[in-house]
């Protein structure tokens, strides 16, 4: 596991280390099996095109899984993911590189817990933000 990050270490405005993904069509089929989402726009190119799409697209919820990993990788073993929201604004295509990123927008204490709020997103190779959202985590304190 990566070194544990603590609440005191987090600076508002700092970035969460990027996570890079490049989902393949094989991965989309694996996701279909894992999630039970067999909608044909995610594996049948002809079907996707008949629906007006340029081709097969990546499941929004798979990208949500990537953004969840972005956060759980960062918060380490002791941190907890409390809230994650994803807005699927654009299309992601298999074979394209997706950069998952996040930036700390706020940190606060409440009822003895130490919260960090981040804006999160995925960016495609054209620099377009295809998914955006927010994540709230709790982190341990050093003292």
């Amino acid at each position, binding site marked *: *596991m990566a070194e544990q990050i603590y609440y005191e270490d987090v600076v508002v405005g700092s970035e969460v280390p990027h996570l890079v*993904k490049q989902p393949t069509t094989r*991965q989309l089929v*694996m*996701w279909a*099996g*894992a*999630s*039970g*989402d*067999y*909608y044909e726009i995610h594996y049948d190119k002809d079907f996707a095109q008949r*629906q*007006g*799409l340029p081709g097969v*697209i*990546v*499941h*929004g*919820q*798979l*990208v*949500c*899984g*990537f*953004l*969840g*990993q972005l956060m*759980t*990788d960062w918060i380490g*073993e*002791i941190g*907890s*993911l*409390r*809230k*994650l*929201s*994803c*807005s*699927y*604004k*654009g*299309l*992601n295509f298999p074979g394209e590189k997706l950069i998952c990123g996040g930036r700390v927008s706020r940190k606060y204490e409440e009822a003895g817990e130490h919260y960090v709020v981040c804006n999160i997103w995925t960016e495609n190779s054209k620099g377009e933000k*295809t*998914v955006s*959202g927010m994540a709230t985590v709790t982190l341990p304190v050093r003292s």
Partner: protein
Amino acid sequence: MAESMITDEMKSKIGVESEPEVYEVTVQMIQRFIQATGDSNPLWQDEENVKRSKYGGIIAPPTIIPVIGWERFLALQVKSLLRGKMLHAGTELDCYKPVRLGDRISVTNKVANIRELQSETGRALLVIFEGTYKNQNRELVAKCQQKLIGYEAGETKNG
């Protein structure tokens, strides 16, 4: 003015909680999920090391929650409202307890809201579903809101 896309039958579904369905969190369920996402975090799989973690055993990635019961949810609830072209617009997940290996998660869903939208290519319906997830101890594990758009006609624009 065109007739609303939101029928009385649709309106009658708002706020009606589905019967609970129970899913056991198995090694296979977690493995298939993390293989598909490519997530190698030891918390989800390293049985020996996680004994020493604060959880004392394997847990599942929090983003597995929306997937629990998703296939049945799509087949029964979503298809009864959105029959044609459909896209996923958003997910909002609130986690209260970790999902542990061996947990028996009870899932209920309801339609929280239905709105009509004017998309670039025609009319569409935005349906907001709300799922509630409890473990075998009746503890609230998570809530999850899913936004789905069903298009009347024309091209799709979202992911």
